[in-house]
């Protein structure tokens, strides 16, 4: 009774050793079978219900392996939603699960609404009537919440940009419709060149949003964070303390060569990439050798700098030199080794940090929680927030990608020499996808635009 296939990460984001991506709907098995390479050459479309399969998730387009996974196949009707359900168990953590989810969406699933699995379970008769009211509450509250975050995120430039793209496309399609609906009036012609330019322009702008949207990147890739300080201030012990407290969610992808190694962890659900130069997890001895020059790279890449003062030693020339390097960065100051006798000029720390620094001991763990809260709050104040927010963000990304796809097929249609009525169909759906983000209905916009811009009608 429900037609499309939905997908979502169904484990709490960034927490736990394993993440589950759940896909439900009539195409669930088909979609996953297209991105799953079984170790034993099993075709998921032919397996029995309620079986587990071992293999890899890969992107058939470029043959890239994403992760090593276990896949559970459960066929309708004995599933949670009473539909075909596939669950992909991948390595825990935000990044692999997010990438796999994106791959699933790219292959035809739709991102689930908040509470939608439960809703389907209910609609398909899985839950009993007494649970109806509760489900309604969940859906309304969750939707309200995500709407709130959607609006929150849509303040400012992203909304402006998307609205602009949408308006540009509405102007294009209005022109096409003015010509189609009023063929005998002297509406100026729209040549293929203008049309193609207009569409390409919008594609470029969508790409830009997809690419440069900083928030999007942080959500997608995590907050790049560098721990910086002169040798022997306790950077690595701080790092280890953070890693011990917060489960490391992924190690660096083997086989890729990078100078910088990242540690990925999650602080209160926010994905964090701790950047340091090579070998940070090796012995302290090597870590001590990391000098100012090699930190520069890490600093350039970082969204957030954690600068470490050493409570047990006076402030030195090295400290000032490094501070100079991070002048234009967002910095969180740490006064480390507070378990040791103080030899530092506290007034100077006050002055250098603007009075905002976290007192901490990597040994006793004192201050570690304050550090985590501070990171969390700094990110939040940036408009980057928790699960609901990430979800909405992803929905927008989903819509942008679909809009782009529609525009690409517009170009194909024009290229193959087809007429405007065909072009208008894909243009319409691109506008509809963007309308999902901006929340405006396209049709009335369009008709208004026709009559405002073109002098038509007898």
């Amino acid at each position: 009774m429900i037609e499309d296939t939905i997908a979502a990460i169904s484990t709490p984001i960034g927490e736990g050793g394993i993440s589950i991506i759940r896909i439900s709907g009539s195409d669930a098995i088909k979609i996953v079978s297209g991105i799953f390479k079984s170790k034993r050459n099993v075709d998921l479309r032919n397996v029995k219900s309620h079986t587990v399969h071992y293999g890899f998730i890969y992107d058939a387009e470029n043959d890239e392996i994403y992760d090593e996974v276990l896949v559970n196949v459960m066929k309708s009707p004995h599933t949670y939603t009473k539909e075909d359900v596939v669950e992909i168990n991948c390595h825990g953590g935000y990044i692999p699960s997010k990438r796999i989810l994106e791959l699933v969406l790219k292959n035809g699933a739709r991102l689930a609404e908040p509470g939608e699995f439960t809703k389907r379970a209910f609609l398909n008769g899985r839950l009993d009537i007494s649970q109806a009211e509760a489900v309604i509450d969940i859906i309304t509250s969750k939707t309200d919440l995500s709407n709130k975050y959607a609006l929150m995120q849509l303040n400012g430039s992203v909304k402006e940009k998307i609205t602009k793209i949408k308006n540009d496309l509405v102007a294009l399609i209005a022109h096409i419709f003015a010509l189609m609906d009023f063929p005998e009036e002297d509406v100026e012609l729209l040549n293929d060149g203008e049309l193609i330019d207009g569409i390409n322009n919008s594609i470029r702008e969508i790409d830009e949003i997809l690419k440069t949207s900083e928030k999007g990147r942080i959500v997608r890739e995590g907050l790049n964070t560098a721990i910086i300080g002169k040798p022997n201030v306790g950077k690595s012990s701080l790092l280890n303390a953070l890693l011990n407290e917060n489960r490391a969610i992924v190690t660096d992808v083997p086989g890729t060569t990078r100078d910088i190694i990242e540690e990925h962890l999650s602080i209160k659900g926010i994905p964090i990439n701790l950047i340091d130069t090579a070998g940070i997890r090796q012995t302290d001895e090597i870590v001590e050798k990391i000098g100012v020059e090699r930190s520069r790279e890490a600093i350039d890449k970082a969204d957030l700098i954690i600068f470490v003062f050493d409570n047990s030693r006076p402030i030195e020339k090295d400290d000032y030199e490094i501070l100079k390097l991070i002048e234009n960065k967002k910095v969180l100051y740490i006064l480390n080794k507070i378990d040791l006798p103080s030899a530092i000029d506290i007034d100077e720390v006050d002055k250098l940090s603007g009075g905002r620094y976290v007192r901490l001991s990597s040994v006793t763990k004192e201050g570690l929680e304050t550090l985590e809260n501070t990171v969390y709050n700094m990110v939040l104040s940036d408009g980057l927030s928790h699960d609901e927010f990430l979800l909405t963000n992803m929905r927008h990304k989903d819509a942008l990608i679909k809009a782009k796809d529609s525009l690409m097929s517009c170009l194909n249609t024009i290229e193959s020499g087809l007429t405007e009525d065909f072009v208008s169909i894909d243009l319409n759906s691109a506008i509809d996808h963007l309308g999902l983000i901006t929340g405006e209905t396209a049709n009335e916009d369009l008709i208004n635009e026709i009559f405002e811009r073109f002098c038509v009608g007898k």
Partner: protein
Amino acid sequence: MIYNAGVYDVAVIGLGHAGCEAALATARLGLKTVAFAINLDSIALMPCNPAIGGPAKTNLVREIDALGGQMAINTDLTLIQERTLNTSKGPAVRALRAQSDKKRYQFNMKYTLEKQENLDIKQAEVVDIEVEDGQVKSVITKTGARYLCKSCIVTTGTYLRGRIIIGDVSYSGGPNGLFPANELSKCFERLNIRLMRFKTGTPARVDKKSINFDAMEIQPGDDKITPFSYMHDEINVEQIPCWLTYTNEKTHEVIMRNIDRSPLYSGEIKGVGPRYCPSIEDKVVKFPDKLRHQLFIEPEGRDTNEMYVQGMSSSMPEDVQIEFLRTIKGLENVKVMRPGYAIEYDCIDPTQLKQSLELKTISGLFFAGQVNGTSGYEEAAAQGLMAGINAAMKYYNREPFILDRSEAYIGVLIDDLVTKGTNEPYRMLTSRAEYRLILRQDNADFRLTEKGRQIGLVDDERYNRFLMKKAQYEKEMERLKNTMITPSHDVNEYLKSKGSSPIVTGITMYDLLKRPEIDYVSSKVIDSGRPDDIRDDVAFQIDINIKYEGYIKKQMEQVEKFKALENKKIPSWINYDDIKGISIEARQKLKSIMPTSVGQASRISGVSPADISVILIYLQSRR
């Protein structure tokens, strides 16, 4: 004194384009029908331009035809010119436009009504509709006649409390010098029907003798006329040309100099006018950069010198109209026979109607046409036909006949009206139809003839014609799929002549026709087994359905998704006050519109996807 004038199943009030279709439909479906016009000589009057069709409107006319309505047949029988529009813009928007002989159109339609069994037509103004226990009982005319009826179809067009405005002159009046209907509005107010006030207008009619056609560009009709009706194979009549000319800066100067005398800008006109039908003063004010506006001079018929000045609709004072017309090339000495005018009229808020066009609050009271806030002869006729069919369905205790947005432009039209309402006279536009690749004018018979047959309006002749066409189409498609074309000198020469690449292995004729540069008709030379008797319209279907297969499939998938929500019906007993968790705005809208399906509910502005989820769950839980 009121006297009993007769007992009928249906009374139709008004015999414009909506009323004619409504009355014919009910009578043909066996209902004893009485139909009223204020003046019997105004039956099927075209008070504005003498033309039928155009983009989207052609689709409506052909849908009416496929269902067994009259407009297309009557157009074919009385047209004086026809042009095919949008040939280069694609099959989905291709359209026909016929210039009609206004008088012949009227008389031919009137005679069709007169000959119709079960149908009595009367010259009378209906002043009251009597309702008892929420059910229509009778209608009463100004002269005191009471006609008992089970259903009543209101098709009053622009007559309700009509007011004519020409510059600073205004008076109570109907279109084209006819009387208005002033009483019925009061009846509607008494029946608690919400009214709106709309406005429309028409240009001057000028004397052919006073026009210098040498200064204008001739606009002849097509060499070969394509009939509107699926019942006609060809039309051979002498065509009369139209003429093209333009306004100029002098025209605009006259208008701007007198703009303070325009009732549009003085506040004299309060009704809402249609944006797609702007008056010339509107165009000049809103598009000051446009140095000229194009005008078509269109003949109003074969036996008249009256010419319609398309593009010059105006409610400026008569003297100003004459002055600006005479600035136009070819019209320097023009004589105006009828001045242009604006007309304000009452219409109802169409969201008070069900999808069947029956009023939600009064059983048996149907509304169709311009009185529902639309504009255009074709839009009116489409609604008239549907109201007539549904009055009959009700009479026979059958399910209402509803077309959805994926089945017909008629469905889009009625769904828009009853779901979204309208705040200006509503005109059908291609852009309103989401599934326009499927709702083409060329396939209306494939979409709707079977439905018309089930209703009972498609007679044997029409049905057999359709079945034969369909059989020919299906057989030929099958043959094309099974016909192998093998590489040969002749085949590749043909392909070369079409700018197509040669073939090196065998390919089915079907696959070859997928190439954009290969068309069905010309490819006969390489397809030796092709029958000789393939109809033109079948050839057209074959080309479209093969070439655009991918696009049509894609759109069919969208339709399937659409249908899923459309098929989730909302029962009439639903009580929105009972449902926890829908927003206040949505609740109000839902209570007033009372959508019949979840799909319809989702199209109401102010109803969010979250509200829809809640309704789905509520419905499921009460199942």
